């Protein structure tokens, strides 16, 4: 699977680094998040998805090997649509700048 960080969107909170320090790191000196390796082992899929869903600005995108693109949605309908929100796929910024290294 591939993991990309939208570095224009990144809020530099470092939450992903605290969550999965082996997968994400903060660029020096500005603190923008980046992915440590271009591909991430499939065994980490659930953990990476969780980190993506927890990113305060939804800047993390997970591209599974099947090719589907997931990103925690930032602006879907408010409650009571929460379950749908998590399921929603955000296609707002498909050409977004990505931070894969």
């Amino acid at each position, binding site marked *: 699977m591939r993991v990309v960080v939208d570095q*224009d969107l990144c*809020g*530099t*909170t*470092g*939450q992903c*680094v*605290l*969550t999965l320090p082996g997968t994400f790191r*903060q660029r*020096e*000196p*500005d*603190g*923008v998040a980046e992915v440590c390796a271009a591909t991430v082992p499939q065994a980490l899929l659930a953990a990476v998805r*969780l*980190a993506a*869903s*927890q990113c*305060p*600005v*939804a800047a993390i995108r997970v591209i599974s090997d099947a090719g589907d693109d997931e990103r925690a949605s*930032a*602006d879907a309908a*408010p*409650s*009571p649509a*929460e379950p749908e*929100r998590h399921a929603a796929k955000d296609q707002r910024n498909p050409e977004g700048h990505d931070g894969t290294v």
Partner: protein
Amino acid sequence: MDVQETKTACRDAFAELASPACIHDPYPFMRWLREHDPVHRAASGLFLLSRHADIYWALTATGDAFRGPAPGELARYFPRAATSLSLNLMASTIAMKDPPTHTRLRRLISRDFTMRQIDNLRPSIARIVAARLDGMAPALERGEAVDLHREFALALPMLVFAELFGLPQDDMFGLAAGIGAIVEGLSPHASDPQLAAADAGSARVQAYFGDLIQRKRTDPRHDIVSMLVGAHDDDADTLSDAELISMLWGMLLGGFTTTAAAIDHAVLAMLAYPEQRHWLQGDAVEVKAFVEEVLRRDAPVLFSATPRIAQRDIELGGVVIPKNADVRVLIAAGNRDPDGFADPDRFDPARFYGTNPGMSTDGKIMLSFGHGIHFCPGAQLARMQLAESLPRIQARFPTLALAEQPTREPSAFLRTFLALPVRLNAQAGG
């Protein structure tokens, strides 16, 4: 609660939160509000959200469905802004900005302030913790009461802040003395005298930071102020003087009264729930669980102090929030929403055992640091101070007990303390 149970609507939740009953314990009212009027419209026109899902959504949608006030419309959202230094400073802080300005300022704060660099502060935080506890020990061991709030909970973040910002400790204590008044003046329902007191305090802080910036310009050190001054001098477009002062002012205000309150609440939780103290004797994962639960159950910031302005009509729970309305979020109510956290009034660190920071085992976000673009830049620093403090307090003073009931700051929107007198019990476990 008897009176509130019979109400069909609350006229102004902000006024209610400022009542003596809510200062004593705001949670019964918050529960009522969340259950009966979760998208509350106050008499003043402000909206207040109190459900976890709605707050989470509003925080996430900030910068998108919600924006900060534009400079030209400050008077609309802060009628007294024209004459208030504090409100003008607040309007210039990063918390009131939208991208791309927000992004530019945020990157400056995060510069040289990454998780790795915060982690590098751990030894000096541990050293300050040990020194403050050593300082309290003689009086406690003589059987005297000590104000843990002033001697420890407030002193620790102040000393950490002084180190980070390169301030002499005496200057820091001088600045800190005026902060409570400033913060209170920023509450949406602050009285004119409260705002005047805030402005007097802000003027002193502004003058101090003006001098400090000059000192750091001529004699830069390895601290945040020097770094920001350097960013300013390298490229004046990057950070204006006004932005620099308001940024420092904002970090001073947000920086340590909240951390102090979290430490106070953590100590109160240790004393109230001795059966949960084992979490503090465990490893870092267990300590983290205790810390997160303290932050969830007793959010230091009850509701957001900065406006989130609706970009369009927004329907939420059957209520239409009109375009341009000022929306606030009652973070403390969201943290106690049973739809976010089961049995929410219960203090139960297990909800955060082995999870990502700020996320429960059910995958719900703890709201005390916010979410979205304005997520607290000091979150990890605060967490580290709590994690370094609590196990040491417990190990050093296992018979710690309340000497008197703590005194709370009479604030509608901050759950902070004036005093937390403690003593040692003569008999262990007594």
